[in-house]
């Protein structure tokens, strides 16, 4: 029983290691469903400041992170 536990522990430790050597794991969102979304103020393409809190109580926000401009998606 103890041996099986050790084997499982070893396997659990090895697998992310093997995976990491191949490809680094993608980042995992630190903000979860039900959390208050962290506020921000950023500049849009027309140099207007946009803050998340402007929409509170008024609209839903679809906050779409994209990788790079001039790419698909």
């Amino acid at each position, binding site marked *: 029983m103890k041996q099986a536990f050790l084997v499982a522990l070893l396997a659990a430790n090895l697998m992310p290691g093997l995976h990491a050597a191949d490809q680094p794991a993608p980042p995992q969102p630190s903000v979860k469903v039900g959390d208050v979304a962290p506020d921000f103020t950023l500049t849009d393409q027309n140099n207007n400041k946009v803050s998340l809190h402007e929409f509170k109580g008024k609209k839903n926000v*679809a906050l*779409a992170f994209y990788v790079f401009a001039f790419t698909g998606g």
Partner: protein
Amino acid sequence: MQAFQQNLSKLEAADTQVLGVSMDSSFSNKAWAEKIGVTFPLLSDWGGDVTKEYGLYNPKYKAARRATFVIDKDGKVADIKLDSEAIDPSKTVEACQARKLNR
């Protein structure tokens, strides 16, 4: 972002403001928005502070992971889509439509 533009009227009808965010400069975003006809804000997270706060900074590309958050009218995260599901906004549209009815 093209797919979000195509679904913009549906999202607006569901009381939803679309905001794109990346670590590009505003200058880059302006040129790109004009090229593809995006009319909603594309926000420049130059330096990546917001991307990091949301846990999406990918050091391999020095850029964000593709992700779409639906934030409800109370400021809480209602839905998260990653990668290919974040590119196709259909599930985000559904989540926003459900949120319209809640209020």
